[in-house]
């Protein structure tokens, strides 16, 4: 991997010491984000997406958490860095937006105070300059009458407006990487679309890499360049958004897409079964206990190595190993890589070059 990448995460493992033993939330995960691109981490609740992203800048509490692996940001290892050095990066170069804007702001301070705090702890900026910049950003993220609302308290804002303020707070330090952890989940659908559009515009404007966590594949389809599918702390599949939507390789990805009626999904009521116990994950593929194609080889050893099934698309599934028959897990509409048939239109997204 070239080291000029914006963010490279290698073998990231986050565990928590609990009364019932060690809980492994993220188990040896790799992914990377480049400037200007949006990478989505997808998976159901409890699959370790949030923990993975909060491990990047170590905002997870340690202890009880313990983070191992390598997180390189512009070539510097964030996990090996002293806390004080990392603090200069948090909020300044790498910014976070969280899931619940209702709780993410301190109710005792004005939104202006909270936005300028993010700027002034990193940069030597006068109060007037900080205010001007914050008002400018509030205006940019779509808060009407921003200079008057600067002195309002969070409870005087609606949920969508609060998330806009949170975005302004994240952007005030001109970050190069924005980590957005389900930023639209707590918002209603119309507001969701506005926030997504806003993030999309701002990404271009600020030329940021965006790491976007969501369980909502509908959101992914709108914003992602690349997708990382996580399940039970492991990466199941990764690839470009069109590849994943068009010919999902992993049975888990396929089932996730099956749950989406707007993409032709027919499964009602979700994927049967539940996530494995993170204290004691199963041998072999983590998804094997819920997988309809699982066989003996799936239940032994480690999570299968990732196998490239099309350029940039890699899957962790034994059925793609040499000598195995991948057609077992492929849907009817699967067209092999390099095949001449286009997707039959069942997927909502089709390849641009088809």
């Amino acid at each position, binding site marked *: 991997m070239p080291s000029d990448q914006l963010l490279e995460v290698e073998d990231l493992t986050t565990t928590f010491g609990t009364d019932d033993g060690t809980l492994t939330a993220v188990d040896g995960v790799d992914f990377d984000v480049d400037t200007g691109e949006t990478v989505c981490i997808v998976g159901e609740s409890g699959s370790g997406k949030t923990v993975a992203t909060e491990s990047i800048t170590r905002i997870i509490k340690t202890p009880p958490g313990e983070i191992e692996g390598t997180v390189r940001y512009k070539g510097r290892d964030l996990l090996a860095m002293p806390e004080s050095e990392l603090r200069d990066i*948090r909020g300044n170069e790498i910014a976070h937006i969280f899931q619940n804007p209702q709780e993410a702001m301190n109710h005792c301070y004005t939104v202006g105070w909270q936005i300028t*705090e993010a700027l002034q702890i990193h940069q030597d900026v006068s109060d007037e300059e900080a205010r001007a910049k914050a008002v400018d950003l509030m205006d940019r993220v779509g808060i009407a009458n921003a200079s008057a609302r600067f002195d309002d308290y969070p409870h005087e804002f609606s949920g969508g407006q609060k998330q806009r303020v949170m975005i302004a707070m994240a952007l005030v330090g001109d970050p190069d990487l924005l980590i957005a952890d389900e930023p639209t989940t707590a918002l209603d659908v119309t507001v969701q679309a506005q926030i997504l559009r806003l993030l999309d515009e701002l990404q271009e404007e600020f030329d940021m890499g965006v790491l976007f966590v969501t369980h909502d594949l509908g959101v992914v389809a709108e914003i992602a360049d690349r997708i990382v599918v996580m399940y039970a702390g492991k990466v199941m599949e990764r690839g470009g958004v069109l590849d994943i939507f068009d010919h999902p390789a992993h049975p888990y990805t396929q089932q996730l897409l099956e749950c989406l009626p707007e993409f032709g999904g027919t499964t009602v009521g979700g994927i049967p079964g539940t996530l494995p116990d993170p204290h004691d994950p199963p041998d072999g593929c983590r998804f094997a206990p819920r997988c309809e194609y699982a066989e003996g080889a799936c239940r032994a050893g480690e999570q299968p190595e990732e196998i490239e099934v099309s350029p940039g698309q890699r899957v962790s599934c034994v059925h793609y190993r040499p000598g195995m028959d991948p057609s077992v897990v492929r849907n009817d509409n699967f067209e092999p890589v390099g095949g001449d048939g286009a997707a039959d239109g069942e997927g909502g997204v089709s390849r641009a070059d088809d």
Partner: protein
Amino acid sequence: MGFGRYVTARVLWAGVVSLVITTITFLLLSAAPNPDVQQATTQAALQGGDPAAAAERARELRGLDEPLYVRYFDFIQGVYTLDWGWSSSRSQPVLEAVVGALYYTAQYSIPWTILTVILGPLVGVYSAANMYSWRDHAATGFAFFGYAIPNFFFGIILLLIFGVWLEVIPVVYNTDVAVFSVENVVQLAIPVFVLVTGSIGALMRVSRNESAEFQNSDFMKTAKAKGVSPLRAYAYHVMRPTLVPVSTTLVGQLLALFLGSSLLVEVVFGIPGLGRLTFEALLSQDTNLVLGTTLFFTFVAVVGNLIEDLVFTVLDPRISYDDR
């Protein structure tokens, strides 16, 4: 309604409350037998005079033959013009006696209040930040000890140790030393310590539990993600919201101790303050003086609650001034 109007309304309301309390005090007193009249009656009977005539004279002398409403307006006027009558047991005006005693009470109450207000939340938040460590356990143990042990008893023990055995402090408070002198600080250290242990416990517990909630809040995660240092995060993002519930506990705690324990502590340490003044006025049945100290404590309570309400609205911006 803006903040200014809210403050005005609260202050006016505090005035009304104090008027209601004064009125009730007056009615209770006028219904009770007057000790001076009783004394005159007894004396006349003993000396072979006419008890009824003596009682009449005594009542006339004190204006008690006037109609109730006239006496009420006189009384109210007296209270608000600081003419609180004559203390027969001390042979000085009541106000003078109260102010004189307040001089000594203030000397230990002010440092006691300041220490409580600063130490209580600080130790509580520190305790929460190091939850279940030995420091937290030590602070918690101290809080429960101070809260549980009766102040006067703790005072007697400490007086025995430091006053009688070690002879570091005088057994009876020495009024001759200057207010701002080392001797005064030394002799007040023990009573202040005793009162702080009594008042700090509840505050520490409240701030520990409240801040435990805030230090795990989403906005602390936001602060951390912004790059805020732990010290700043605790000072701004935990301490500030913690002070809101703490402020409601604080005034009640201080007032309860001010009215109750300080009286006992003053008696134990021989400090000629308000507590002892009240105590002695009760013993010598000096009605005017009892009334005077009661009124003083009442006003302290009313003003204390007023401050609490105002501080509360300043600390928590979500509390609106509307509709009140």
